């Protein structure tokens, strides 16, 4: 009863990640932190990072949002935990480029793993912000630690 596009947007892996929520929890004490809002729907995330030199030792976030935004936060956590902040920034840029490509670009499986399940989002302009929410929060958090 649902179309192929819908099925590709809401793949099982997305539904699973939205439920399991890797990194989900109170980020109190995590520094740097960032709070982001999606102004259209009021969805929010507070995401904190524990750094170990230039490495992201741990990511913790909480908030509320749709399946896409929750799954995206969970997938992000898996991807960047343990990586250098420099790598994380590159990954965020790449993710944004793909999301904004209106279906023209695809995420690289080597770098994004399961998160390639988010590829379908880029065809839904109004959902790009949902997928970007956690990534923008991480970007802002890391920007604070730069100084």
């Amino acid at each position: 009863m649902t179309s192929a596009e819908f099925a590709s947007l809401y793949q099982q892996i997305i539904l699973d990640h939205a439920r399991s929520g890797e990194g989900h929890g109170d980020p109190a004490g995590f520094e740097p932190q960032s709070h982001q809002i999606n102004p259209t729907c009021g969805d929010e995330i507070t995401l904190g990072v524990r750094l170990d030199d230039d490495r992201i030792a741990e990511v913790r976030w909480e908030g509320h949002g749709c399946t896409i935004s929750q799954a995206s936060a969970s997938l992000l956590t898996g991807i960047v935990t343990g990586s250098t902040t420099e790598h994380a920034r590159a990954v965020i840029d790449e993710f944004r480029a793909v999301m904004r490509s209106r279906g023209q670009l695809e995420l690289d499986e080597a770098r994004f793993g399961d998160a390639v399940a988010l590829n379908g989002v880029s065809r839904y302009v109004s959902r790009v912000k949902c997928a970007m929410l956690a990534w923008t929060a991480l970007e802002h958090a890391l920007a604070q630690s730069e100084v």
Partner: protein
Amino acid sequence: MVTATTSLSTADVAAIRADFPVLAERVNGQPLVYLDSAATAQKPLQVLDAERDFLLHRNAAVHRGAHTLAGEATEEFEDARAVVSAFIGADADEIVWTSNATEAINLVAYGLSNALTSSRYGRLAVRPGDEIVITERDHHANIIPWQQLAQRTGATLRYLPVDDDGTLRMELLDQLVTERTRVLAFSHVSNVTGTASPVAELVARARQVGALVVLDACQAVPQLPFNVRELDVDFAAFSGHKLYGPTGVGVLYGRRELLEALPPFLTGGSMITTVTMDAAEFLPPPQRFEAGTEPISQAVGLAAAVRYLQRIGMDRVAAHGRELTERLAGGLAAIDGVRVIGAGERVGLASFDVAEVHAHDVGQFLDDRGIAVRVGHHCAQPLHRRLGLAASVRASVAVHTTHDEVDQLLVAVADASEFFRGSR
């Protein structure tokens, strides 16, 4: 004696649908079911044709030119004012063209602070110690302009709270609206609950204390017979694009003596009598409030939309809306896990929450079936926060909506609930 008003027949609606060609198109392979008219309405061919015909044959600057085209354009533009003002029971010089309802409300709010610095228009000035009262279920367009007015003037902003189902707590009215209240602003029909405010009671209290009544009529005018004299409000605001007309045009109604007492807001050409480098003298209303080149073809388009509705008859439009909205709200309430927001009779729309499923996900599921609804906070964050929600789903009906379309929505909502909750 009240006679039951006939609604629109299936044949009537079928004929109306032919005026909205987009309704015959497909979205995601499914016939479009447009249930988002409360955000913006589709426009009938009559509106598109009127605007195009004007632009092809009579386009010119109005009120300024002496040539033939300018004369014709001015006539058609002022005819549009006459049509739209008559539609709401006002005189032609009591309506001001704005760009949308938001700007109309801002015009009043800025006028009340501009009155402070203008000796000639001091009467209406809002000052420190004065109070402005709005309601907790207002649209941001009827909240933030008043917050800003309070900030500019030192006045205090208060609000009439709602109870757990979004109903105004009228028992608090007398205590909130007092001799200090200068403005009472509220929406006629809530764009979230779809329920109407008790306008008569609110107006009566404002009259007792001498407060101005500003009515946000955005959701009422497209759905109900609407008459500013019967409602006895001081100002009323609505948008063309929700009334089957173009974007880029809105309407502020103002009682004549109040428009006369209000200082200008936007300033520039076409609103003055004499300008020196030091000072300007302003025209009487409505020109005083219409600075620069007007939304000319848009006003013409809006008049065509109003004529379109008048041909159908607003009584029948309202009866059709009532039928559909009852079916919609009743049907939603009957779906397991669905909470319909608000209580009482709804006008043209119903918003709801599906337990454990985010509004965005429901919306996406419906869109996959060609059903367009609005998801989010609908520019009413305070109300959503009060009701314990971040976002909701809103379905709204129009003259072209069929019973069958409402039923399609109901089935799809049940399926969406099943899909997302089943997968948990």
